[in-house]
Protein backbone atom coordinates (compact mmCIF):
# COMPACT_ATOMS: atom_id res chain seq x y z
CA UNK A 1 0.00 0.00 0.00
CA UNK A 2 1.26 3.46 -0.88
CA UNK A 3 1.76 6.02 1.84
CA UNK A 4 -0.66 8.38 0.10
CA UNK A 5 -3.43 5.76 0.18
CA UNK A 6 -2.78 5.08 3.84
CA UNK A 7 -3.13 8.78 4.63
CA UNK A 8 -6.22 9.31 2.45
CA UNK A 9 -8.37 9.56 5.58
CA UNK A 10 -7.40 13.12 6.42
CA UNK A 11 -10.21 13.79 8.85
CA UNK A 12 -8.31 11.85 11.48
CA UNK A 13 -5.55 14.45 11.69
CA UNK A 14 -8.13 17.24 11.86
CA UNK A 15 -9.13 15.93 15.30
CA UNK A 16 -5.73 16.92 16.62
CA UNK A 17 -6.03 19.94 18.79
CA UNK A 18 -3.82 22.73 17.53
CA UNK A 19 -1.68 24.90 19.75
CA UNK A 20 0.37 23.95 22.77
CA UNK A 21 3.87 25.06 23.48
CA UNK A 22 7.11 23.39 22.48
CA UNK A 23 7.48 21.48 25.76
CA UNK A 24 3.98 20.00 25.73
CA UNK A 25 4.05 19.14 22.04
CA UNK A 26 7.45 17.47 22.45
CA UNK A 27 6.20 15.48 25.43
CA UNK A 28 3.10 14.58 23.44
CA UNK A 29 5.20 13.32 20.57
CA UNK A 30 7.25 11.10 22.91
CA UNK A 31 4.21 9.80 24.78
CA UNK A 32 2.22 9.10 21.62
CA UNK A 33 5.19 7.41 19.99
CA UNK A 34 5.60 5.12 22.98
CA UNK A 35 1.93 4.43 23.47
CA UNK A 36 1.05 3.80 19.85
CA UNK A 37 3.92 1.37 19.42
CA UNK A 38 3.07 -0.79 22.39
CA UNK A 39 -0.64 -1.50 22.10
CA UNK A 40 -1.44 -4.66 23.99
CA UNK A 41 -4.56 -6.46 22.79
CA UNK A 42 -6.83 -8.48 25.01
CA UNK A 43 -7.17 -12.19 24.30
CA UNK A 44 -10.82 -11.94 23.35
CA UNK A 45 -12.46 -13.50 20.33
CA UNK A 46 -15.76 -15.23 19.82
CA UNK A 47 -15.71 -16.90 16.41
CA UNK A 48 -13.98 -17.33 13.04
CA UNK A 49 -12.42 -13.85 13.04
CA UNK A 50 -10.34 -15.18 15.92
CA UNK A 51 -8.52 -17.46 13.50
CA UNK A 52 -7.57 -14.48 11.33
CA UNK A 53 -6.55 -12.55 14.44
CA UNK A 54 -4.31 -15.44 15.51
CA UNK A 55 -2.88 -15.59 12.01
CA UNK A 56 -2.14 -11.87 12.25
CA UNK A 57 -0.21 -12.48 15.43
CA UNK A 58 1.58 -15.54 14.07
CA UNK A 59 5.00 -15.32 12.34
CA UNK A 60 3.81 -14.96 8.73
CA UNK A 61 2.03 -11.64 9.31
CA UNK A 62 3.32 -10.86 12.81
CA UNK A 63 1.74 -7.66 14.01
CA UNK A 64 4.44 -7.34 16.64
CA UNK A 65 6.36 -5.66 13.79
CA UNK A 66 4.00 -2.71 14.14
CA UNK A 67 4.07 -2.60 17.90
CA UNK A 68 0.74 -4.27 18.67
CA UNK A 69 2.51 -6.73 20.78
CA UNK A 70 1.63 -9.41 23.29
CA UNK A 71 -1.87 -10.71 23.90
CA UNK A 72 -2.82 -10.12 27.51
CA UNK A 73 -5.15 -12.54 29.21
CA UNK A 74 -6.29 -9.89 31.70
CA UNK A 75 -8.31 -6.82 30.71
CA UNK A 76 -6.44 -4.84 33.36
CA UNK A 77 -3.23 -5.10 31.34
CA UNK A 78 -4.73 -4.57 27.90
CA UNK A 79 -4.91 -1.36 25.87
CA UNK A 80 -7.09 -2.49 22.98
CA UNK A 81 -9.89 -5.01 22.68
CA UNK A 82 -10.29 -6.52 19.23
CA UNK A 83 -13.91 -7.66 19.04
CA UNK A 84 -13.36 -10.57 16.69
CA UNK A 85 -16.64 -12.31 16.03
CA UNK A 86 -20.35 -12.40 16.64
CA UNK A 87 -21.63 -10.86 19.86
CA UNK A 88 -24.89 -12.41 21.02
CA UNK A 89 -27.28 -10.87 23.54
CA UNK A 90 -25.91 -13.23 26.14
CA UNK A 91 -22.28 -12.32 25.37
CA UNK A 92 -22.87 -8.56 25.34
CA UNK A 93 -22.80 -8.08 29.17
CA UNK A 94 -19.53 -10.01 29.30
CA UNK A 95 -18.01 -7.80 26.61
CA UNK A 96 -19.18 -4.69 28.44
CA UNK A 97 -17.69 -5.92 31.70
CA UNK A 98 -14.35 -6.68 30.03
CA UNK A 99 -14.34 -3.24 28.47
CA UNK A 100 -15.16 -1.60 31.80
CA UNK A 101 -12.33 -3.48 33.50
CA UNK A 102 -9.72 -2.16 31.07
CA UNK A 103 -7.71 0.84 32.21
CA UNK A 104 -7.90 4.17 30.38
CA UNK A 105 -6.87 4.97 27.71
CA UNK A 106 -8.56 2.04 26.00
CA UNK A 107 -9.47 1.36 22.41
CA UNK A 108 -11.86 -0.91 20.56
CA UNK A 109 -11.44 -2.43 17.11
CA UNK A 110 -14.60 -3.97 15.64
CA UNK A 111 -13.23 -6.74 13.45
CA UNK A 112 -15.38 -8.40 10.82
CA UNK A 113 -18.93 -8.04 9.56
CA UNK A 114 -20.54 -9.43 12.74
CA UNK A 115 -18.89 -6.91 15.01
CA UNK A 116 -19.48 -4.05 12.57
CA UNK A 117 -23.17 -4.61 11.86
CA UNK A 118 -24.29 -8.12 12.76
CA UNK A 119 -23.10 -9.30 9.36
CA UNK A 120 -24.69 -12.54 8.11
CA UNK A 121 -26.87 -12.59 11.23
CA UNK A 122 -28.50 -9.24 10.53
CA UNK A 123 -31.68 -10.79 9.11
CA UNK A 124 -33.84 -13.53 10.65
CA UNK A 125 -31.75 -13.82 13.77
CA UNK A 126 -33.13 -13.68 17.27
CA UNK A 127 -30.09 -13.37 19.48
CA UNK A 128 -27.34 -11.32 17.81
CA UNK A 129 -26.25 -7.74 18.54
CA UNK A 130 -26.41 -5.73 15.29
CA UNK A 131 -23.02 -4.11 15.62
CA UNK A 132 -20.84 -4.00 18.69
CA UNK A 133 -21.15 -0.20 18.80
CA UNK A 134 -24.47 -0.74 20.57
CA UNK A 135 -22.44 -1.94 23.56
CA UNK A 136 -19.02 -0.24 23.55
CA UNK A 137 -17.63 2.81 21.69
CA UNK A 138 -15.67 1.64 18.64
CA UNK A 139 -12.52 3.35 17.33
CA UNK A 140 -11.80 1.42 14.15
CA UNK A 141 -14.09 -0.74 12.03
CA UNK A 142 -12.43 -3.48 9.98
CA UNK A 143 -14.92 -4.92 7.47
CA UNK A 144 -14.65 -8.37 5.93
CA UNK A 145 -16.03 -11.82 6.63
CA UNK A 146 -13.55 -12.57 8.04
CA UNK A 147 -11.04 -9.80 7.23
CA UNK A 148 -7.67 -10.97 5.99
CA UNK A 149 -4.71 -10.35 8.32
CA UNK A 150 -3.64 -7.48 6.05
CA UNK A 151 -6.99 -5.79 6.74
CA UNK A 152 -6.55 -6.14 10.48
CA UNK A 153 -3.00 -4.78 10.19
CA UNK A 154 -4.39 -1.81 8.27
CA UNK A 155 -7.00 -1.29 10.98
CA UNK A 156 -4.39 -1.49 13.71
CA UNK A 157 -2.19 1.04 11.93
CA UNK A 158 -5.17 3.39 11.56
CA UNK A 159 -5.68 3.02 15.30
CA UNK A 160 -2.04 3.92 15.85
CA UNK A 161 -2.60 7.10 13.82
CA UNK A 162 -5.52 7.85 16.09
CA UNK A 163 -3.45 7.24 19.22
CA UNK A 164 -0.83 9.67 17.95
CA UNK A 165 -3.36 12.52 18.01
CA UNK A 166 -3.58 12.60 21.77
CA UNK A 167 -2.14 15.23 24.05
CA UNK A 168 -1.26 15.09 27.72
CA UNK A 169 -3.22 18.26 28.39
CA UNK A 170 -6.52 16.49 27.73
CA UNK A 171 -6.06 12.76 28.27
CA UNK A 172 -8.50 10.39 26.65
CA UNK A 173 -11.18 9.19 29.04
CA UNK A 174 -14.04 6.86 28.28
CA UNK A 175 -16.65 9.19 29.75
CA UNK A 176 -15.59 11.86 27.23
CA UNK A 177 -16.42 9.50 24.36
CA UNK A 178 -20.11 9.46 25.07
Amino acid at each position, binding site marked *: MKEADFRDNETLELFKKSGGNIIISTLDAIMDWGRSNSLWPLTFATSCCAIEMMATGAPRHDFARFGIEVYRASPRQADVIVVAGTITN*KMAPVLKRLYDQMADPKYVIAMGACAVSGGPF*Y*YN*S*YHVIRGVDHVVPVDVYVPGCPPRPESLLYGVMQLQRKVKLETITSPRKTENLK
Partner: protein
Amino acid sequence: MDKAALKERILGLVTDAEFQENKQFPMFVIPPDKMHALAVRLKEDPDLSFDYLFCLSGVDMLKYFEVVYHMESTTLQHQLVLKVRTADRENAAVDTVCDIWRTAELHEREVYDLLGVKFNNHPDLRRFFLEENWKGHPLRKDYVDEVNIVEL
Protein backbone atom coordinates in the same frame (compact mmCIF):
# COMPACT_ATOMS: atom_id res chain seq x y z
CA MET B 1 -23.04 -55.87 12.22
CA ASP B 2 -23.83 -54.69 8.67
CA LYS B 3 -26.87 -52.66 7.64
CA ALA B 4 -29.10 -55.55 6.60
CA ALA B 5 -28.47 -57.48 9.80
CA LEU B 6 -29.01 -54.35 11.86
CA LYS B 7 -32.32 -53.68 10.11
CA GLU B 8 -33.51 -57.22 10.80
CA ARG B 9 -32.41 -56.97 14.41
CA ILE B 10 -34.16 -53.65 15.11
CA LEU B 11 -37.38 -54.77 13.42
CA GLY B 12 -37.19 -57.91 15.55
CA LEU B 13 -36.87 -55.86 18.74
CA VAL B 14 -39.61 -53.34 17.90
CA THR B 15 -42.13 -54.82 15.50
CA ASP B 16 -43.92 -51.57 14.70
CA ALA B 17 -40.77 -49.61 13.92
CA GLU B 18 -40.80 -47.94 10.53
CA PHE B 19 -37.68 -48.34 8.38
CA GLN B 20 -36.64 -45.35 6.27
CA GLU B 21 -34.24 -45.50 3.33
CA ASN B 22 -31.04 -43.61 3.99
CA LYS B 23 -27.70 -43.78 2.18
CA GLN B 24 -25.43 -43.35 5.16
CA PHE B 25 -27.08 -44.91 8.23
CA PRO B 26 -29.97 -47.32 8.75
CA MET B 27 -32.84 -45.18 10.00
CA PHE B 28 -35.97 -46.07 11.97
CA VAL B 29 -39.01 -44.28 13.33
CA ILE B 30 -39.75 -45.69 16.78
CA PRO B 31 -43.03 -45.28 18.73
CA PRO B 32 -42.33 -42.90 21.63
CA ASP B 33 -43.39 -45.31 24.39
CA LYS B 34 -40.93 -47.97 23.21
CA MET B 35 -37.90 -45.74 22.75
CA HIS B 36 -36.48 -45.95 26.26
CA ALA B 37 -36.67 -49.74 26.51
CA LEU B 38 -35.12 -50.06 23.05
CA ALA B 39 -32.30 -47.68 23.99
CA VAL B 40 -31.47 -49.75 27.08
CA ARG B 41 -31.38 -52.87 24.92
CA LEU B 42 -29.16 -51.21 22.29
CA LYS B 43 -26.65 -50.19 24.93
CA GLU B 44 -26.62 -53.42 26.95
CA ASP B 45 -26.81 -56.09 24.26
CA PRO B 46 -23.24 -57.33 23.56
CA ASP B 47 -23.69 -57.74 19.80
CA LEU B 48 -25.28 -54.26 19.49
CA SER B 49 -23.43 -52.32 22.24
CA PHE B 50 -24.25 -48.80 21.06
CA ASP B 51 -22.07 -47.08 23.64
CA TYR B 52 -21.82 -43.68 21.98
CA LEU B 53 -24.70 -41.27 21.28
CA PHE B 54 -22.95 -38.86 18.95
CA CYS B 55 -25.86 -36.58 18.18
CA LEU B 56 -29.30 -35.86 19.54
CA SER B 57 -31.29 -33.25 17.68
CA GLY B 58 -34.81 -31.92 17.33
CA VAL B 59 -36.73 -31.09 14.15
CA ASP B 60 -39.86 -28.99 13.81
CA MET B 61 -42.12 -30.87 11.39
CA LEU B 62 -44.97 -28.28 11.69
CA LYS B 63 -47.60 -30.76 12.96
CA TYR B 64 -45.30 -32.52 15.41
CA PHE B 65 -41.68 -32.58 16.54
CA GLU B 66 -39.13 -35.21 15.75
CA VAL B 67 -36.24 -36.08 18.06
CA VAL B 68 -33.39 -37.73 16.17
CA TYR B 69 -30.81 -39.97 17.84
CA HIS B 70 -27.52 -40.75 16.07
CA MET B 71 -25.62 -43.54 17.79
CA GLU B 72 -22.53 -45.57 17.21
CA SER B 73 -20.80 -48.59 18.65
CA THR B 74 -17.15 -47.73 19.15
CA THR B 75 -16.21 -51.40 19.56
CA LEU B 76 -18.30 -52.92 16.74
CA GLN B 77 -18.04 -49.92 14.38
CA HIS B 78 -21.67 -49.69 13.33
CA GLN B 79 -24.03 -46.73 13.38
CA LEU B 80 -27.76 -46.27 13.69
CA VAL B 81 -30.30 -43.45 13.50
CA LEU B 82 -33.55 -43.52 15.45
CA LYS B 83 -36.38 -41.01 15.27
CA VAL B 84 -39.17 -40.40 17.72
CA ARG B 85 -42.26 -38.35 16.83
CA THR B 86 -44.20 -36.42 19.45
CA ALA B 87 -47.99 -36.61 19.45
CA ASP B 88 -48.59 -32.87 19.04
CA ARG B 89 -46.92 -29.46 19.33
CA GLU B 90 -48.43 -28.11 22.55
CA ASN B 91 -47.44 -30.79 25.04
CA ALA B 92 -44.56 -32.34 23.15
CA ALA B 93 -42.76 -34.75 25.47
CA VAL B 94 -40.35 -37.64 24.97
CA ASP B 95 -38.73 -39.94 27.52
CA THR B 96 -35.17 -38.96 28.36
CA VAL B 97 -32.26 -41.21 27.43
CA CYS B 98 -29.70 -39.41 29.60
CA ASP B 99 -29.75 -42.26 32.13
CA ILE B 100 -28.40 -44.46 29.32
CA TRP B 101 -26.05 -42.03 27.58
CA ARG B 102 -24.95 -39.22 29.88
CA THR B 103 -24.18 -36.94 26.92
CA ALA B 104 -27.91 -36.73 26.16
CA GLU B 105 -28.39 -34.56 29.23
CA LEU B 106 -26.99 -31.46 27.54
CA HIS B 107 -28.36 -32.35 24.10
CA GLU B 108 -31.85 -32.66 25.53
CA ARG B 109 -31.51 -29.35 27.32
CA GLU B 110 -30.60 -27.77 23.98
CA VAL B 111 -33.63 -29.30 22.23
CA TYR B 112 -35.83 -28.16 25.11
CA ASP B 113 -34.38 -24.65 24.97
CA LEU B 114 -34.72 -24.06 21.24
CA LEU B 115 -37.78 -26.18 20.33
CA GLY B 116 -39.66 -26.65 23.58
CA VAL B 117 -39.79 -30.44 23.53
CA LYS B 118 -39.98 -31.68 27.11
CA PHE B 119 -38.06 -34.75 28.25
CA ASN B 120 -39.71 -36.88 30.92
CA ASN B 121 -37.50 -37.87 33.90
CA HIS B 122 -34.73 -35.49 32.86
CA PRO B 123 -32.79 -34.52 36.04
CA ASP B 124 -32.14 -30.87 35.18
CA LEU B 125 -34.38 -29.62 32.36
CA ARG B 126 -33.80 -25.89 32.01
CA ARG B 127 -32.63 -23.44 29.36
CA PHE B 128 -29.21 -24.05 27.88
CA PHE B 129 -28.15 -21.29 25.45
CA LEU B 130 -30.73 -18.61 26.15
CA GLU B 131 -31.36 -16.64 29.31
CA GLU B 132 -33.58 -18.12 32.01
CA ASN B 133 -36.30 -15.51 31.45
CA TRP B 134 -36.50 -15.97 27.66
CA LYS B 135 -40.04 -16.38 26.35
CA GLY B 136 -40.81 -18.92 23.65
CA HIS B 137 -38.60 -21.31 21.72
CA PRO B 138 -36.86 -19.56 18.82
CA LEU B 139 -36.23 -22.50 16.48
CA ARG B 140 -39.94 -23.26 16.19
CA LYS B 141 -41.25 -22.43 12.73
CA ASP B 142 -44.07 -20.30 14.18
CA TYR B 143 -41.81 -18.27 16.47
CA VAL B 144 -42.27 -14.51 16.13
CA ASP B 145 -40.15 -11.82 17.73
CA GLU B 146 -41.03 -8.31 16.62
CA VAL B 147 -38.17 -6.71 18.55
CA ASN B 148 -35.09 -8.74 17.71
CA ILE B 149 -35.79 -10.34 14.36
CA VAL B 150 -35.33 -8.27 11.21
CA GLU B 151 -37.28 -10.05 8.49
CA LEU B 152 -35.63 -10.29 5.10
